[in-house]
């Protein structure tokens, strides 16, 4: 079944992270990403979906197939209404964690994507966008 142009998945439990991975994979295959690029964007999405669940208290992942007139790609936007991130530049550092993790999710997701954008402020939730082009 081809992925629709755009779909929004709820992230409420750890099973939802598996579903996000599967749908990002489907979209990546559809736009023709190679296996390594598929693996990179699915891994980045897995990291961000887990952050949305663990720190954001749940939220959504919007998966979209993008087209700039010639090139196609996959874009995923993660959004939550959680506590937000007080200092984004600190949170983006390799090894920074407040949850006993490895502190690699945000910085790793940026390295694994062609585009990365994060917006967050305390009390206003968090929005992270990643994209990978063919």
């Amino acid at each position, binding site marked *: 079944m081809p992925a629709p142009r755009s779909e929004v998945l709820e992230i409420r439990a750890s099973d939802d992270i*598996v579903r996000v991975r599967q749908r990002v994979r489907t979209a990546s295959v559809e736009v023709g990403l190679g296996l390594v690029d598929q693996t990179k964007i*699915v891994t980045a999405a897995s990291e961000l979906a887990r952050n949305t669940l663990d720190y954001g208290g749940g939220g959504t992942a919007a998966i979209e197939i993008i087209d700039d007139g010639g090139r196609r790609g996959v874009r995923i936007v993660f959004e939550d209404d959680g506590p937000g991130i007080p200092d984004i530049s600190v949170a983006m550092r*390799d090894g920074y964690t407040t949850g006993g993790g*490895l502190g*690699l999710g945000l910085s790793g997701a940026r390295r694994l994507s062609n585009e990365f954008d994060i917006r967050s402020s305390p009390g206003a939730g968090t929005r992270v966008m990643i994209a990978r082009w063919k």
Partner: protein
Amino acid sequence: MDRIPILKMGHALLVTIQVDMHDQLAMALEEDLTARIAATGARGVLIDISSLEIVDSFIGRMLDSIAAVSRLLDARTVVVGMRPAVAITLVELGLSMPGVNTALNVERGLALIGVSVSGDGEHDAGTEV
């Protein structure tokens, strides 16, 4: 809740991860494995991840933590069958899993642990490394 089966092969335990693991399953595996190492006195643990399409920091941390606990129980952990695309992605993610040994396949993993599963499975044909 589902469990991932753990097979005993001589002095080693073999776990083949066949599904896209959700988090509870991963945590249950860690508990089950350490209990089995203690109960069987296994000298090594092979974790076959050839079916895994991705390894993220959560799975990486789980593998590292299994290796650390196993070491305390005097067993070596070898992760086998990592797909090339997964290896490339892990490096870019920045995940190094310092405590985890890796091997290309189960046979080489067993050699690394230094146990053999031939014969009746009761004798260590290899030497401990």
